[in-house]
């Protein structure tokens, strides 16, 4: 068997800390999936809570599976400028041989969680009205067609890496990418039936805060794990992941208090996510003071975009465009401003290297274009086989009961057990039913 061959050549013992840290980081990024699911789940109405959680976790699962089968190969096999090749299709040749200082299989697993979380982010723009099956199909296709190439450009040795654009942990690859897909997806799917007629309010603000907290925790693996090794870069990224959201939170609460006189909990949760998004591309490239500045500045565009979106016709249900698209854009550009050679980056604008900002802008624009066009094409493709949106009646009843046959908050009253081998004795109509049929109810 060649299973023993896969175990050679061994990594040096010195690599053990890197392996341990990347194992932990991979699990931390995985925790962002339920974190995001609860963040999103709390923001929707109670009748769509389960569907929203399932849309998020389902996208994560479908995206990660598609990544394993084809996406990883297109991103990390070969060194073309635009695409990888099919050398690692279905994990061919992904074994325990070293890739950097960690086993190739571990590098794959870490990257797989990124692919899954990116497409899961897009769900927030489409929830409360999209069909579940169409969404899963789209998630799998999007990971291969849109995510994998952009990932290759930046981290797989593609043209953005050659250009020298900086993206430490995925400000462009993950967040601008997901934000662009969210914008196109929300426009293609159209608004929810109650959009503009009724205020669509979060059904569980505690879930939103819980989700934001889990996201922050998981984000330490996302950013500090992206150093791919134990060392200075991981430490800088870790501290910056702590600091930037604090600055965003402070700015956001001040804006909230100044505008309405009250500091809102949903606003605080949103601020944490925006700060995390903004520091993602910069995490291992800027000083801690730079991270604070990025967090502070990034609050402004996202905050005002959220306000404007609420008054617009764009029904991006959970503000993926404002939080992730715009937050990622701010972060990518500010990385070009604050990147510091002393802290692990290349010199940025503040160190006299203005062209870096231009390269960052090129990365953002290319990602916006690729993701926008790819998303539009894939939605059209899926729509050719099945409708994208649920029926209006289903939307009104709520997607939980209609699509999943479960309720998030059922009372448990009035439920009659249906036995699998139900003979005639189990098929008798309940007394209430017969009363109704005889016209007495």
């Amino acid at each position: 068997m060649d299973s023993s061959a896969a175990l050679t050549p061994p990594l040096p013992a010195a690599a053990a800390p890197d392996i341990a840290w990347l194992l932990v980081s991979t699990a931390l990024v995985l925790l962002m999936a339920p974190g995001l699911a609860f963040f999103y789940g709390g923001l929707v109405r109670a009748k769509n809570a389960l569907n929203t959680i399932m849309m998020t976790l389902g996208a994560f699962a479908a995206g990660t599976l598609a990544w394993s089968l084809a996406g990883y190969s297109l991103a990390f096999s070969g060194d073309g400028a635009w695409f990888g090749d099919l050398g690692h299709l279905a994990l061919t040749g992904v074994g325990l041989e070293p890739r950097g200082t960690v086993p190739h299989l571990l590098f794959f697993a870490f990257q797989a969680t990124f692919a899954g979380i990116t497409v899961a982010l897009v769900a927030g723009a489409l929830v409360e009205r999209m069909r579940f099956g169409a969404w899963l199909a789209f998630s799998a296709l999007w990971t291969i067609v849109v995510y994998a190439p952009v990932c290759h450009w930046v981290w797989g040795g593609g043209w953005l890496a050659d250009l020298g654009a900086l993206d430490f942990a995925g400000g462009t690859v993950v967040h601008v990418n997901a934000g662009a897909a969210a914008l196109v997806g929300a426009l293609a799917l159209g608004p929810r039936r109650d959009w503009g007629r009724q205020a669509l309010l979060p059904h569980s603000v505690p879930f939103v805060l819980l989700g934001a907290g889990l996201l922050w925790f998981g984000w330490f693996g996302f950013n500090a794990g992206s150093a791919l090794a134990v060392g200075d870069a991981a430490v800088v990224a870790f501290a910056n992941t702590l600091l930037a959201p604090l600055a965003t939170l402070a700015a956001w609460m001040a804006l909230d208090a100044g505008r309405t006189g009250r500091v809102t909990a949903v606003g605080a949760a949103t601020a944490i996510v925006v700060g995390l998004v903004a520091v993602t591309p910069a995490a291992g490239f800027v000083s801690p003071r730079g991270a604070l500045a990025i967090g502070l500045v990034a609050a402004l565009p996202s905050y005002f975009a959220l306000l404007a979106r609420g008054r617009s016709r764009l029904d991006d249900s959970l503000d993926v465009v404002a939080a992730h698209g715009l937050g990622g854009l701010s972060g990518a550009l500010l990385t070009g401003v604050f990147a510091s050679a002393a802290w692990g980056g290349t010199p940025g604008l503040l160190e006299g290297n203005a062209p870096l900002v231009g390269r960052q802008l090129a990365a953002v624009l290319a990602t916006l274009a690729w993701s926008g066009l790819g998303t539009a094409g894939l939605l059209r493709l899926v729509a050719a086989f099945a409708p994208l949106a649920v029926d209006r009646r289903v939307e009104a009843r709520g997607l939980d009961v209609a699509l999943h046959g479960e309720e998030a908050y059922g009372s448990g009253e009035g439920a009659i057990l249906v036995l699998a081998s139900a003979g005639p004795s189990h098929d008798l109509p309940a007394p209430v039913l017969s009363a109704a049929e005889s016209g007495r109810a």
Partner: protein
Amino acid sequence: MKLIVAIVRPDRLNDVLEALFRADVRGLTLSRVEGHGGELEAVQTYRGTTVKMELVEKVRLEIGVSEPFVDVTVEAIRAAAATGEVGDGKIFVLPVESVVRIRTGERDVDAVTPVAAPAVAPR
């Protein structure tokens, strides 16, 4: 005066409220209730346990109105709540002996005539 009690589907509630607003019917009480009106039960599955939901969620509206508003109110609710399928609900019209507005002590027709509340400033 009549008390109008309507049991409607929760997913028609927005339309019902909008129709009542357009018909100038103000002042109502709303409760979330569970009930059964002869519709086919929804089937749900939890970990392999299949259950029929015999009681389904409904919304109960209670509206006290003076005589000229009775038919207007009933028709507004009926038109907005109807889907044509079993389970759309019922509207009951009950005679009312007396109504008192607690704030002022006004009685009967005066008590069910709406008054304008101070406007709420927009955000």
